Structure formats: C-alpha cells, structure tokens
C-alpha cells in the first residue's frame, strides 16, 4: 500500500504533479475525444509544435511561457485558416507547412538562449515535477472553461462529428464551431505543455481518447473513459517515474500508450470470442 500512496503523501511536488496531471487528463479527455472523432490528429500535433516559437520568445523575454504559447497558437490557427482561404491547398498542406515552419522557428529562437538544451527539453517534454500552485490554478480554470464550452456546444459539436453539412443546415455555423473546437485544442495544449510538454501532450490527447473510442458506445461515455484512462496514466506514470527514476512526463505518456494497446488487445479478444460463440451457436 505504501508503495502506491506514500510517494504522493510524503512529497508535495509529486502531489502537485498528480493534481496537475488529473486536470490535464480531464481537459485532454474532452478535447481528445473531438480530435479522434473528427480526425483532427494532425492539427492537434501541429498545434503542439506551433506554440513552440511563442514559448521560446517568452523564455528569452522572461515572461510566462503560457502567454507565448497562446500567441503561438493564435498565429498557427490564423495561418492555417489564411492559407486554406487564400489558396486551393488542402488544410493538411497548410497544417504541415506551418507545423515544420513554426517548429524550426521555435528551435532557432531557443538556440539564442544560453541554456538551449535545458530549455528545449523542458518545453518538449514538460516539467511536471516542478509545477507550482499558480500553474495548477491556471490549469483548473482552463479545464473548467473547456468543460463548460463542451457542455454549451454539445449539440453543434456532435453534429460536426456526425457531418459538418448537417451542423450548418441545422442552423449552427460549422466554421464558427470548428474554430471554437480548434481554440479548445489550443487551450488544452497550452495548459498541458508545462506538465507533459508540447511533444508529449499529443499522446495525452490521443491515447486515452483512442482507448475510450474502443470502449464507449456514446460520446459522453467516451469522454469519461478518456479522462479516467488519462488519470490512471498520470498516477501510474508518476509512480513508475518515482520508483525507477524515469522521466515523469514521458512515463505518463508511455503508460497512456500501453493502456491503449491493452484495451485494443482485450477488445479484439472479446470480438474473437463473440464470433466464436456465434459460429458455435450457428452450427
């Protein structure tokens, strides 16, 4: 028992990490569900990297990284929208173009910093063990905003997942609600980068929601599963990291990925058994 609880009770930094991770799990569970259902994985990944130059500028100027990340996300979403509107290129091309461009810009800016390697690793892979109360409060507010937005926009979001044309015909602007969805992804990425980093936040957005999609028969239930699997990943990841001295952020994402594959295997075994039973009954 002590092995599973004591690390969090005797180390305040680990308890803060757990609380921050739970908040990240809730926001990523909600947002990740829409990413998986609408096939927005690429834009989620691109946003994760698109915020990098903003964070890099913030590091150089000594201002909070979250402000820089927000600006980076706005530039990224605005850029994608501009390219797709002003050219005949698909949004995939626009996202890919800005993805690498923004990543390169971020690395170029960070390379001006004296502590380049440390900074870039911190941004990419997070610093969950160094998180403070102020960051937790900010994450709680952002998670609340994401949750409330998801409740208010539940109908247009469901229609968008089902068929964007149906959303438009039902009186909900598909462009407006698509942009709100992108903004939610951006907020989830921004608040999560301190915890698991811009590189690994993508894993927290996809793996728990992907596992949830395998289990659930309703979108609300899928979100709940995604959040719960995220929380389990945070808890087990932090424990493994504590006991074996692994990098915390990476351990969390690794756990989320392992849980996804575990669910996939179990679901396939269930499917195989059901088919076998049907075959036996048929014969």
């Amino acid at each position: 028992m002590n092995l599973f609880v004591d690390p969090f009770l005797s180390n305040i930094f680990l308890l803060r990490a757990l609380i921050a991770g739970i908040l990240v799990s809730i926001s990523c569970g909600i947002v990740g569900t829409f990413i998986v259902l609408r096939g927005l994985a690429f834009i989620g990944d691109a946003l994760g990297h698109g915020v990098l130059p903003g964070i890099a500028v913030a590091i150089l100027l000594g201002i909070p990284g979250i402000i820089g990340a927000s600006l980076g996300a706005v530039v990224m979403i605005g850029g994608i929208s501009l390219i797709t509107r002003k050219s005949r290129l698909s949004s995939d091309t626009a996202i890919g173009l800005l993805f690498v461009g923004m990543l390169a810009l971020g690395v170029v800016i960070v390379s001006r910093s004296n502590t380049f390697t440390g900074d870039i690793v911190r941004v990419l892979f997070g610093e969950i063990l160094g998180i403070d109360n102020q960051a937790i409060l900010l994450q709680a507010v952002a998670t609340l905003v994401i949750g409330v937005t998801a409740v208010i926009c539940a109908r247009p979001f469901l229609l968008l997942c089902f068929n964007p044309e149906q959303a438009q015909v039902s009186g909900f602007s598909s462009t407006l609600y698509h942009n709100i969805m992108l903004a939610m992804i951006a907020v989830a990425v921004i608040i999560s980068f301190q915890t698991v980093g811009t590189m690994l936040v993508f894993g927290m957005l996809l793996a728990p929601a992907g596992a949830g999609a395998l289990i659930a028969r309703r979108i609300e239930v899928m979100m709940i599963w995604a959040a719960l699997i995220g929380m389990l990943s945070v808890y087990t990841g932090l424990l493994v990291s504590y006991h074996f001295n692994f990098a915390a952020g990476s351990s969390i994402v690794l756990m989320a990925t392992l849980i996804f594959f575990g669910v996939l295997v179990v679901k396939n075994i269930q499917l195989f058994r059901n088919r076998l039973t049907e075959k036996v009954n048929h014969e």
Partner: protein
Amino acid sequence: MNNISEEIMVKTELAVTAMGLDIGYQGEPVVQNINFTVEKGQSLALMGVNGSGKSTLLKTLIGLLPAIKGELRIEGKGAGQSPRQIAYLSQFHTSGFILPLRAIDVVRMGRFANHGLLGKMTGADEDLIELAMKNMRVWDLADKSLSSLSGGQQQRVHIAQVLARHANLLILDEPTSGLDAGAREIYQEAIRNELCRGASVITATHDIQEAMDCDQAMLLARKVIAIGPGKDVITAQSLLETFGIVITLNQQNLGIAVVEREHGHDSPCHD
C-alpha cells in the same frame, strides 16, 4: 404539443422559387439559368449523371453554397435562412464506423435545429423521434450502435433523422442508395406521408421510376435538359440528352432497357 402543431402548420406560399439561377463553385457556374417552383406538398426529382449539377443545386438550396446569380426563395426567405423548416439528407455520411452513437442518438440530432444550443427537448420531440424511427422500421434498432448496423439500416436511420425534423421542405440527395426493394417501399411510404402533411420534397435520384412518380422532374446535364411533370419530361429523347445513352421505356413505364449508346455502340444490357 402546441409548439409542434404550430411548427407543422402549412403556409400557403410556394416552398421554393428559383428564377434565372446560376449555381456552381467559387464563381464558376456548373448549371446556368435554372427556373422552377415547388409548391407546398409537391415533389421534385433531379436526375442526371454524376457531376451534372444535382448535388450542387441541392447544396445551393440549403445554403451550403451561395448562388452565383439569380433569385432563390426558400419558404419565403433566402437560402439557409430558415434552418428549422428544412431537412437535408446528404449523399455521403461521414459518421463512418468510429462515431460512438446509437441509432436513436442519430435520429435525435434531427431535433437539434428546433432547440438551438441549450433548448430543452420535450415529450413532443421524443414522440417525433419514435414516429420517424417506426416509419422507417428502425425503432427496434434504436439502442443499437450505429456502427453495428448494415449499410441499408444506417441509411434508414439517416432518413429517420430527416423525418424527425418534421420540416416543411425535405431535400434528399440519393436517399435510396443502399436500400433494398423492401426498404425502398418503406421509404416511399414515408415520403408519401410527408407530402400528405403538406411538406415538399426535392430529391436527387438515379431511379427513373422514382423520378416519374414525382410531381415534377428536372433532367440535368450541366444545363437544364427538361423540367415538368415526370411522366411528360422523361422520354427516350430527354434521357439520351441527359445520360448520353438510349433508354427505352416500356408501356407501363416500369422497365428500362439500355439498347444503344449515343454514338451507335451496341449495349449488351437488356431488361
């Protein structure tokens, strides 16, 4: 129930009026100078080969595409301005296999237009949902996951969503694709009920018999080949112009024989 009763009250004006309408994408016309009217309780079928402009016209009618030129009035308003009054069935369903939805959840979405973001669903809404599912014979599948249903069953669920809207104008893009003969009969009966209650129906179809049963048919081949009562305008000549093949219709108009291609190549297909 009062709200629903008011909602289904049939107005006297025309459901759709198009005058000198040019439709297309990004300012480039696909079909020009379209003129037609659809009265309340009447049906219009659009026929033509793929790319002839059927779906473009439907998308213009529901406001997904702006008209390039001309005048278009839907239920007395501009296209896309009365979402509560229009139900739309798209040709392709992006719901696919991944979306975790039960059949009833899909049909329930048909009522969202009437309640906006946070309006509460009522017992009357649930009645309409149940009726639509029963009319399309999918009520017993209500609790089944959409992904577990066959293609034809999924299409019936999508049609039930359109019926549940209880709209004044139904715009349907190839509604019978994927439906077997029995399901087509179920669909046709449901559409007859919609027409009887005063709703208008505009359908893009490849089914000549279905088009002939409509009050009007419009034949499209990147221009309007013919428009008028289905039985009058669907002739061997108009079908040749529309499809580029000779199609003969037998006396009861129940069978179709493709006997010759436009440029004289014999076809092996005979019904």
